[in-house]
């Protein structure tokens, strides 16, 4: 039984439909990538899973329970955590306070101290910068705070929306190294990316999203070898 099971969802902003009849699964312990160009519906899909958008049709099941239409705070309580695109830090709060807001849910609050130590072990830089305002950090450090803030919520499934966005190539490598570490520590990861090569390299499986529909799916290796993906996304 998959950890997350999405069946035939439609999502619209007002009259404009952005996701059509989409189904996908994520199994426990997997890293799954969703790749696609701008406007393919990747971020809308994550927002729908985390309850920020409501699907007009279809089902979303997490740990065998329906979560479509549930309030975002209930979804977080179940351990389905969304790290939104573009970091979205609370810029006038210190790094530590940003992380603390991550542990807002009842389940995460109880283990806050321990999770904070784990996050600091993974991102030692964040311990050094604990008292600094989030707005004073570099782009790469801010992304670490955003991911760390998501980890503070004790995810069973962590959804990362374009963690490489706007970062220098060397930092992108570091971010993906960290995502791999998170996956190795046992957290299931759903990764949305435009950096197709890096994300498929660390994924088990992938889905290709085009114009709001799943255009292709398969193991990461299959996708990387696929001629369409090679020309459209990898540029070779």
């Amino acid at each position, binding site marked *: 039984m998959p950890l997350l099971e999405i069946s035939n969802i439609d999502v619209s902003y007002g009259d404009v439909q952005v996701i059509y009849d989409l189904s996908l699964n994520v199994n426990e312990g997997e890293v799954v990538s969703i790749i696609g160009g701008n406007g393919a519906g990747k971020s809308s899909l994550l*927002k729908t899973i*985390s*309850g*920020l958008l409501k699907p007009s049709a279809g089902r979303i099941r997490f740990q065998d329970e329906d979560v479509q239409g549930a*309030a*975002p*705070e209930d*979804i*977080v*309580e179940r351990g389905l*955590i*969304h*790290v*939104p695109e573009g970091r*979205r*830090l*609370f*810029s*006038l*709060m210190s790094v530590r*306070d940003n992380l*603390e*807001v*991550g542990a*807002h*849910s009842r389940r995460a609050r109880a283990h806050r101290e321990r999770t904070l130590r784990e996050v600091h072990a993974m991102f030692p830089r964040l311990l050094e910068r604990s008292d600094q305002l989030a707005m004073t950090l570099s782009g790469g450090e801010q992304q670490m705070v*955003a991911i760390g*803030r*998501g980890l503070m*919520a004790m995810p069973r499934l962590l959804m990362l929306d374009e963690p490489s966005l706007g970062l220098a190539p060397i930092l992108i490598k570091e971010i993906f190294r960290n995502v791999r570490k998170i996956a190795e520590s046992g957290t299931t990861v759903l990764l949305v990316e435009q950096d197709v090569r890096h994300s498929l390299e660390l994924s088990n499986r992938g889905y290709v999203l085009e114009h709001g529909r799943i255009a292709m799916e398969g193991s990461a290796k299959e996708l990387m070898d696929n001629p369409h993906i090679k020309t459209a996304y990898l540029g070779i």
Partner: protein
Amino acid sequence: MTPSRFKKILLILAVVLAFGLPLVLRSPTYLHILIMLFLFAYMTTTWNLVGGFAGVLPLGHSVFVGIGAYTSTMLWLQWGISPWIGMIVGGLIAAAVGTLIGLPTLKMRGAYFALATMAFVEGIRVMVENIDKLGPFVLNGPRGLNIPPLPEGSLAAFQFASKEPYYYIILIMLLLVVGLTWRISRSKMGYLLMAGGEEPDAAQALGVNVTRYKVMAMALSSFLTALAGTFIAQLTLFIYPKSVLTLDLSFELAFIALIGGRGSIAGPILGALLLRPVSEFSRIYLSATLPGLHLIILGAILILVMLYQPRGLQEPITRFFDRLAARFGNGNGGTEEKA
């Protein structure tokens, strides 16, 4: 002496000065100007609880001033209930109204909340102007309500023969509300409010019920703002819809907070200290020829401040004091600290 100690001493000096001022300043006119200054600092600080920390723009806070003023005055005139009790009743009614306005509109992004608050205060003003009697209560429509003055004053009736008691009451109210704001800004609620105000998506994605915290802030702010309404009624002993239920007052509070620096604790107070005199003098000297000029002046200042100091005037002023504190901390107190 450490920089934080230096700042604490400055703060205590300012409070002592504020308490001692009426002993030196005997002119009722100047005392009245100071009372209005503190009153606006108070109302802007309570505005800031929702307009600053919750990251929305309330443009109709005078409705709560009006609710406070009318509630306590009607209870006093009708049934002789002390305005001190009426003040609390007015606050509770205002909190309920604030919650009702906030529940549907604070969920929405964009300008809906600001527009709803504006429309609401106008609607209430027009209603009050057209109602002479509401059940047992006399409202007197546009003519407003007169509180018969008691020449010798009375604490229970919230009336005093001189200006000094009003001065101390509003000063204490201001200090209490600033203290409360300071506590909230360092509490969990304050952090979650600020988080939801700045990045609502991120906060929601982390499980923060952003709307609930905003509504809580709105209720608290409405309650505290209404207390100022009762104070105004007791100070002027005459209220009418155009004095306490207007967009002018609502805008002035927003202007002062935005120019001073919304979301900070010093901002609303500094804004009132710097801008109230502008309003006061333009009203005294120019109101006959150019009524409403003070709002135009405030608007112009607001544009300049937003262009050059988008976080308000509190930022350069705070920076100046930090530097001063650092210099005193390292220069004079350096030896002391080494010892």
